[in-house]
């Protein structure tokens, strides 16, 4: 578990795919905007990258252990 995820709240459109696919790793805040749970529980690094790739709005960013952004396209 070395990768970290974050959601750009100005990009998220609340499609809810991350929350539906990985409810332990992503939750909705009070405004129904997705939020990443620290350590992305229940998701491997690979699965996290896969999920971030399929986010419809491209709001999820993934950084590796050294803080480098993972290429998602």
């Amino acid at each position, binding site marked *: 578990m070395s990768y970290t995820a974050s959601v750009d709240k*100005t*990009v*998220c*459109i*609340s*499609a*809810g795919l991350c929350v*539906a696919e990985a409810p332990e790793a992503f939750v909705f805040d009070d*405004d*129904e*905007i997705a939020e990443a749970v620290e350590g992305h529980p229940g998701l491997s690094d690979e699965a996290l990258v*896969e999920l971030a*790739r*399929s986010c*419809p*709005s*491209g709001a999820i960013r993934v950084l590796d252990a050294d803080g480098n952004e993972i290429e*998602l*396209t």
Partner: protein
Amino acid sequence: MTGTEQTVVLTTFADAKDAYRAKDLRQALYDEGEIVMADVLVNLHGEEHRARRRVENRLFRRETFDHYERDLFPGVIETTVAPYLAAGKVDLVHLGHELLLNLAALTAGIDRPEGTAAETERLYAYMMRFVEGATLAHSTQDKDAQRVVIGQALLDWDAEFLTPSIERRRALDPADRPRDVLTCLMEHADELGLTHEVLRREVAFFLLAAAHTSATAFVRSIDHILGWIAEHPEDAPKAAGDPLFVQRCVHETVRLNPSSPIGKRRALAPVRLRSGMEIPEGSSVIIDLMAVNRDPEVFGPDAAEFNPYRTPPPGVAPFGLSFAAGMHVCIGQDLAAGVVPGNDVDPDNHLFGLVTGAVRYMFTCGVRRDPDDPPVRDANTARPYWGRYPVLLGGDA
């Protein structure tokens, strides 16, 4: 277009996906279509778009789709097809419009108190006017005269269909209101600052966005499957018996035939794509979906062929970018085409999408081409639409 305005055409999958996700590229596909499209979701940008989309996304969730796909749609499909099945034949183009409009009306929240084919015909005529309005930029007719006719159609449709639907919902206890776009907008109208005129256009847009696109995908999917099983007779039983196979066929059909052959954006600021491509401020961006979805780098050397067994690389949907990506990614994607199945898919809990459900139902009815009446292309458009597609149903296949 002014002399200094530039047009950038994107033909690779990576550039297209990047462009769809770029915050400084604004929707431009419906310029001139404001009679129907002013202030509707797909034409909003930035915070205004996000606020509306977030509200509507609460409806477009898995639970709602499950409810539509399992409880609502099967009955509508059966009832709509029944008279044609009894007659033993139908024009698929006509049936596709009737069927998918009935399903779209349920989603949009347009009640059809009579529930007759004649009522659907009237709704269909209105919807085609709205399509004409949305695509006015491409019209070769007198656009001002068209605007008058389309504006009047919106008012007539409002009086005949929309206002009675609003009144029925108002009279219901909130817990008993149907889960549809109209109820959702009515309940959030104050929060979103929606006037009745904007609500009218938004519901009209949902009707056309849902019905026209999926009716076209319905006919084309059946055409592709008939072609495929003629070449691969061993797959014939799957068309009626294996919904995952049918869903793959629908995805492949939608990849090869995006509802609009292009996406269009305008650069609000200079944008640099990851490939290094520079898009100057003020320029027009054309996303050539026909090329993008046939990009051999992504879909292989046979990218232009129909192959339901194709496996795209990770991060690429089997339907390519036919539902777009980024902020305007189709809100009805899962509703129309279902969820893309993973390796561990459980068919009992899987969402197949309304096009898959409707197409598969036709194969359970023995749909096949009529040897005495071949399909014909629509002569009124340069786009590859079917004008008539006569098929036989039931009886001996």
